[in-house]
């Protein structure tokens, strides 16, 4: 190739017959490489696409996700006979003209009886709870749900966020349990869960075990503790993939 040819304007350079034949394969190769690049960047080709840099997480210090906050701040669930002493007592305390005024000693005796009854009811309720727990059942929470000052028209949070919250709060693991701090920083387990509409864990399986027995055991304990969600779900949730890792504990594990 002479320098004169190199100095010719680009418009004058025509591809030879061989270059023309190679143009197609070149373009195909270029396109495939571009797709490969996009694939890796999008994270659907690599087996571990997550970056190692510390991500930013939202930490909600005030509101734990509630499944149905549109319920506003309702009264506690309808009083059962065992727990329904308060309304009855209120009814009895209404002034009644037709009844003669009770003597103070009789009132005192009544209050003693009421107290004793109340105590007995509480004890019975506790025994029922123990019995349920002995049979492996989870006692449903009897707490108010919803958000303070809610109007009852708010949208609920995503059901998977609710499950996330329950699983996380039931997951107990100390960083001191993980002997190899370097491995622990990258540890991860994938579990596939299915929850029924009533909030019962129908089953789970490990898609990927972490390789650390303590880590996997802690997850199993969290799942056993989460086998009954405190509230039902809007619908059956099938094949939820829960990824357990320690990304937010990395910094505290580095010194060991």
């Amino acid at each position, binding site marked *: 190739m002479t320098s004169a040819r190199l100095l010719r304007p680009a418009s004058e350079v025509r591809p030879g017959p061989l270059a023309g034949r190679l143009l197609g394969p070149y373009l195909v190769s270029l396109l495939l490489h571009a797709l490969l690049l996009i694939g890796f960047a999008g994270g659907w080709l690599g087996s571990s696409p997550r970056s190692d840099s510390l991500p930013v997480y939202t930490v909600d210090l005030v509101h734990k996700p509630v499944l149905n906050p549109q319920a506003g701040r309702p009264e506690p669930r309808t009083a059962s006979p065992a727990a329904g002493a308060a309304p009855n007592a209120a009814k009895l305390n209404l002034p009644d003209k037709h009844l003669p005024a009770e003597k103070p000693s009789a009132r005192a005796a009544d209050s003693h009886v009421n107290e004793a009854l109340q105590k007995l009811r509480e004890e019975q309720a506790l025994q029922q709870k123990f019995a349920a727990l002995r049979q492996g059942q989870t006692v449903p929470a009897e707490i108010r749900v919803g958000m303070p000052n809610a109007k009852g028209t708010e949208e609920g949070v995503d059901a998977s966020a609710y499950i996330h919250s329950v699983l996380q709060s039931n997951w107990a693991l100390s*960083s001191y349990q993980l002997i190899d701090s370097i491995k622990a920083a990258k540890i991860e387990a994938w579990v596939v869960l299915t929850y029924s509409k009533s909030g019962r864990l129908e089953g789970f399986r490990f898609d990927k075990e972490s390789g650390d027995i303590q880590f996997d055991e802690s997850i199993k304990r969290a799942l056993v503790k989460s086998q009954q969600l405190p509230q039902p779900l809007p619908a059956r949730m099938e094949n939820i993939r829960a990824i357990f890792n*320690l990304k937010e504990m990395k910094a505290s594990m580095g010194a*060991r």
Partner: protein
Amino acid sequence: MWFWRSLLAGVLLAVCLVDIAAGAEIEISAPGQQAIPLALTRFLPQDGAAVPAVAEEMQEVLLADLDLAGLFRFVDPQAFLDDAGKIGLFSTQVDFGQWQLLGAEVLIKGIYNVQGEQLTVEARLFDVPNRRLLAGRRFVGRLQDVRRIAHAFADEILKTLTGEKGPFDARIAFISTRSGHKELWLMDVDGRNPLRLTDHRSIVLNPDFSPTGKELLFTSYRAGNPDLYRKEVFTGREVRLSSQAGLNIAGRYAPDGGSLALTLSRDGDPEIYQLAMTGAIRKRLTTSFGVDVDPSWSPDGRQLAFVSSRLGSPQIFILDVAGGTTRRLTANGKYDATPAWSPKGDRIVFARQEGNRFDLFSIRPDGSDERRLTFGPGSAEHPRWSPDGRFLVYSVEKGGKKALWMMRADGTGWRQVAAEGSHPAWSAVW
């Protein structure tokens, strides 16, 4: 053209299919509870008369050891229900519902039996959510072994929950002046049962346990010169191992126990040497101008961390034992001293002088991630690792008095273990 269209359509379809297959995904990037809720019940008498002191000591030792371990959040004993007062040690006999209600994830229950001087302790660790036994041990010993039994069970608990045995059923050697001279002493990990090992009536310094924990190296001025001695712990037999002219100090067993490193100043300049266990010099390891002291082996025995003033102020250096090459490890302080290489190999802890006192720091062997572990008050020196690399024991000088302290390797959980003492060394599990 059809080729390009079909290729593009195929790629788009693949992307869609991958997205559909992934389904709903939840990422939980930290546990909600970063300590395991533990219920530690009081040990109960099996039959015969109750000996409250046994139950109290079991409780006290287990509580202290497990608290130092850092794994646990203790469930308040005031909240315990009637199962805490029941003897049942089989998982079918435990009312797990009660413990679940209290939020406990692991439960410790136990019984003891005293027959004359003989003590039998049955201890159990249960997994509450899964309602199963995790670990169970039956210990038989004398009545005075109760603390040791509790330490041994604490070690088993750590093994069950971390995969690695704890270091509590071990001993700490240290230097104390409580007999009027600087002598070598031995005590339990919690500072109990101190026992004097030497009667040199001189100055004894710098003990180091052999990898088996059955022997000790130390320096003594008994013969007027700082010579290196070797002592068998159980028989009390003692030999002078190195008595070269000048210093024979800071002897450290190699991890295989087949040789040792120490500082000799036989040629005037303190240098580090490798000695056979007979005391014969095997190799001179440093040859620089300046003081080279305080060797500490890497767990694989291939490298030594030591202090050198070859570049001016004392700094930590790393020596490749086979190749003889040296590199500087620390560069931030003006005076770094007494390095100790973690048994796991991942960190080196050392003392650094800042102002008029020392504080402890730890650093990775590649020189990265330097962290300060102590922040006063007092001068923290002579750090040594527990055999499992989880804890550190060190001395703190305050008001002219030296005491022994202990903490987790990350600088948390510090506590005093002995009101008087210096130069500690932690043995292997006893």
